[in-house]
């Protein structure tokens, strides 16, 4: 039994970003070792079956990554990637859509739709939607020597080129509400979009976050993917294709292998030491070229490296990174019959008997005052919700909106409904204490009451069981989700692009430690959402450093600016592959 092994690259953490990075680097011909502490790879891209025949997605659900270069570069279809296109899937612009408010349905107007189409790049011919998404998520932050302004920031370049009448310096200052007030019509639609942005990573009410917030919503909307947005096998099915791409190109994958320490010799990361109970004979894994931390930024620096190699000023700044923002309480409901929406929320053509008639509501979208009331409670007071459940905002994806031939419940006589999520205080900051949300009975009931505003048969006769999950539990099961945060760090102005997670770490490198790179949603632009983006962006840096030498399949981001004195990640070929 070998006590030590050696690879070109050692990646810590087989969540979405670590695995994307493994797939890219293995495809470059490097020997890659991917280490995962849990019994199963996938991180937040997971499916579980807590009750026979009832499958749930405890974290990521939707495929936000439809615009990723990874589909082409990693050819995931070869490894079994499939979506569940619901028969008759449609884009929203040619059909009636409604938002739910306390008073009932609010119709999304033509002005809403046209405005939305304009700002997301769907009105031009050809559309620039994919360019906008790629500019926002799939481009590494510029090198420090580049001044950031309306001419250099990638999404600004896209607007300037494709929709010049929208291009204004103010786009960099606006909140998402400012942007929507300029181009959209109805308040409930705006509130809905802002709330989806809030739980997807970028807080729509924060200044300067307008375009990142818009894109975090738009990337999960058509036409990037048609409704529903679930891959076959759900989000874990998408993950399987990604992992198998890495394996097919030779990556070695090990589960139950927690890393205790990143070994640093002469200011260079040279390998990792596994925890004593790791399920592998090898206890030290050496890296010839790079160690890549695809686990949360806090344990990376505070536990795996520590003060022996880092100064206390730097460590304090890592400690200070805010975990606030993405902590969600989540419920699934097992019921005896399909959920039925109350009459005032029934859209024209609603037929209770039809498969998929229950699509999850986002409620209540009344007004931004209500939105801010919820945000203030959670972020400001940092306390357990005291808002009555009737006014608490939540979102829900109904399991039946997946394809009928891919049911989430195969248990006879049982419907699975959910997930339903609500933004709640991050345990680490909760004034009521870390375990304040652990009274599951209480919070399940709160969630049930909130959902009952829209659903009329969510009562004890119908409910078999409520499966609830608190942020604290999410953190336990998935250490990449410290604070139960679904996107690591929120994408506010201080933690977005060149500032994420700290300015000196924004280019995925660690100053002062050679051969160490960052590839976690909490440590790298653009953060969360299973976009295959951190891995793609990191590739530019690894090419610059001479570590990765991709083949003809590689293309760099069109907005990428090489760092002076480094190798350019732009392929030196007569005609690089088009990104369109």
């Amino acid at each position: 039994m070998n006590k030590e092994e050696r690879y070109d690259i050692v990646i810590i953490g087989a969540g979405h970003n670590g695995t994307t990075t493994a797939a890219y680097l293995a495809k470059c011909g490097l020997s890659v070792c991917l280490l995962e502490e849990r019994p199963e790879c996938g991180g937040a891209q997971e499916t579980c079956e807590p009750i026979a025949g009832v499958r749930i997605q405890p974290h990521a659900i939707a495929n936000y990554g439809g615009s990723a270069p990874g589909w082409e570069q990693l050819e995931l279809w070869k490894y079994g990637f499939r979506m569940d296109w619901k028969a008759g899937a449609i884009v929203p612009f040619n059909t009636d859509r409604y938002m739910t408010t306390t008073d009932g349905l609010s119709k999304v107007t033509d002005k809403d739709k046209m405005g939305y189409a304009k700002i997301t790049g769907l009105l031009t011919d050809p559309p620039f939607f994919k360019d906008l998404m790629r500019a926002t998520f799939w481009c590494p932050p510029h090198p420090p020597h580049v001044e950031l302004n309306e001419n250099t920031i990638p999404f600004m370049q896209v607007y300037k080129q494709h929709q010049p009448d929208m291009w204004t310096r103010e786009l960099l200052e606006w909140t998402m509400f400012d942007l929507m007030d300029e181009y959209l019509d109805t308040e409930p639609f705006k509130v809905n979009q802002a709330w989806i942005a809030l739980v997807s990573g970028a807080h729509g009410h924060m200044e300067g976050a307008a375009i990142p917030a818009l894109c975090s919503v738009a990337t999960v909307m058509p036409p990037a993917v048609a409704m529903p947005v679930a891959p076959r096998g759900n989000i874990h099915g998408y993950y399987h294709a990604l992992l198998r791409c890495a394996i097919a190109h030779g990556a070695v994958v090990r589960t139950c292998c927690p890393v205790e320490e990143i070994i640093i010799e002469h200011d260079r990361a040279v390998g990792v030491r596994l925890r004593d109970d790791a399920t592998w004979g090898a206890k030290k894994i050496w890296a010839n070229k790079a160690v890549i931390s695809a686990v949360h930024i806090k344990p990376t620096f505070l536990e795996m490296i520590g003060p022996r190699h880092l100064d206390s000023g730097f460590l304090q700044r890592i400690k200070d990174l805010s975990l606030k923002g993405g902590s969600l309480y989540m419920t699934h409901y097992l019921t005896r019959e399909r959920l039925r929406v109350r009459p005032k929320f029934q859209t024209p053509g609603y037929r209770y008997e039809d498969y998929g008639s229950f699509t999850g509501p986002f409620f209540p979208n009344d007004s931004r005052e209500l939105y801010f009331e919820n945000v203030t409670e959670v972020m400001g007071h940092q306390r357990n919700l005291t808002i009555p459940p009737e006014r608490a905002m939540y979102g829900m994806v109904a399991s039946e909106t997946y394809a009928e031939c891919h049911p989430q419940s195969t248990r006879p006589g049982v419907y699975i409904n959910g997930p339903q999520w609500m933004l709640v205080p991050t345990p680490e900051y909760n004034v009521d204490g870390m375990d304040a949300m652990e009274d599951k009975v209480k919070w399940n009931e709160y969630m049930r009451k909130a959902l009952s505003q829209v659903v009329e048969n969510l009562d004890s006769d119908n409910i078999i069981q409520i499966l609830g999950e608190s942020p604290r539990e999410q953190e336990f099961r998935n250490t990449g989700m410290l604070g139960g945060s679904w996107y690591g760090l929120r994408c506010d102005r201080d933690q977005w692009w060149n500032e994420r997670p700290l300015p000196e770490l924004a280019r995925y490198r660690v100053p002062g430690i050679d051969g160490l790179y960052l590839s976690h949603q909490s440590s790298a632009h653009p953060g969360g959402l299973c976009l295959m983006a951190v891995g793609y962006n990191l590739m530019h840096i690894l090419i610059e450093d001479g570590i990765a030498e991709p083949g003809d399949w590689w293309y760099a981001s069109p907005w990428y600016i090489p760092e002076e004195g480094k190798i350019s990640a732009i392929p030196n070929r007569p005609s690089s592959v088009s990104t369109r």
Partner: protein
Amino acid sequence: MKQKRELVGQPHPQCFFSEFPAESDWDAVIIGAGPNGLITAAYLARAGLRVAIVERRYEVGGGLATEEILYPGFYSNMHAIYHLMVDFMPAIKDFDMERHGLVWIKPNLQTAMVFGDGGSLLLTRMIEDTMDSFHKYSDKDAVAFGKLMRNWRRIVSEILAPATYIPAMPPIDLTVAMQRTDIGREMLELVEQSPLDIINNHFENDRIRAFLLYISCMWGLDPRETGIGFYVPLLIDRGMNKCYLHGGSHKLAGALSREIVRAGGTILESSDVIKINRHNGSVTGVELMEGRTLNSDVVISSLDPHTTFFDLMDKNKLPTDLKDSVERWKYDKWSFNTVHVVSKEAPHYACEDQWVDESFMTIFGFESTKQLLAHWDNVVAGKIDKNSLGGHATCESFLDSHLVRKPGHISFFQMHAPYGIDGGWDKRGPEIMEAMLAKWAKAAPNMKRENIVMAKQETPKDIEIRFPNMRRGSIKHGDYTPIQMGCFRPNEACSNHSTPIKGLYLCGASTYPGGLVLGGPGYLAANRVAEDLGVKKWWKPTKEMERYIKTYLT
């Protein structure tokens, strides 16, 4: 037959990316990614065939399942946890599982049985430690055990274990072959006895009898049936050599699936095969419910005979003999009912021998063979006597820290149980779970309510829902009876893993040599397909198999 859905699976016209095509061509398609399907696929993929393996669940592995049923935060091994054949399984050597980071733990204290008066019996990897515990009840039995195991160990390692990975032989040929050696003849004598006879003939103490009878029959032997006696030495010897796969049983499935992918094979989960296509009597591929077609002249099914021949094919177009034999197929006589728990403390048994707490498996609830037989008779009759039940328990977190994501211990208590219980599982489930927890608390007094954080029951009905091909909760895809074993598993026409239908092969637990993660059917099916297609085998028989072939077959 299930309906294929139109449109589903077709990429959306405005989608930016490619998906797996609606129609694709393969050298071999394997239905079902349990241990055997994965093994067949891994051997054939490395042999150079373009292989697709299709799995209905969202995850590969079948019974090699380590799942977060004590949600959130705690993983449990849902089925296969006691790996009996790690010492002999060719796939473990051929794919060099150590290279995959697989670590098997073989504790010395394998099985304990605890009694109401604080007494206990131990079965250990080291024969002498078992004898020590038998001395407490019978010096004669302790000596008999030591003597018996010396021969039985040879019967297992030289005959039964290697034969697991060699095609089934007709009984008459087997009888002739076994005449060649002393241990062969001894094995033949055992065949004709029932497990109960064998145990009673060799041992006098009733507790020792009950202990060894449980170990011999726990995987589904009828204690009173003759013709299957060779299983007694096999299951006692293997019961002394059970291995736990560190990190959970699913790691074996993960390693096999990586072998498939590394060799260019494709795994499609969440895909329901609804039809095996045929043209002019030969198979041409399979249809998936999502609307995709996989074309292949070779289809290898790991499913039970009913599913393969009746659900996925037109049963009226089958040869009459085959149809009749499939109709006669009998599922397992009993299934398992399992209570999985999270507790603050690990179970601490009320037992004078404190070593028992470290046992890989702990049997309790039975004080005598009579009580044990009564429980099994009840189960076969569709009943559970709440006042007199028993089974075996394992504390997984004692061996494996990785299954636990929050502070606490995970354990399970598993009991033989009928699929078709009087009154139905929906109605009876809760009271039976209470009775099991009460029984557990009696054997291990700290397993009381205040210690148990979470408890979840998986009934035989749940087994079928979670693993649709464990029909009627049949963990082995079909009963172990003389007419469903050896070259009769699943029937004479199919026991060599090919079928009367051209291009259709079988590789599951319903074929020789059976279930229990032996890895036998998958290995034998891969050999069979490779031979039929003229594919060069990259693997060689193990040295135990070679010695067996040399001694008995040449």
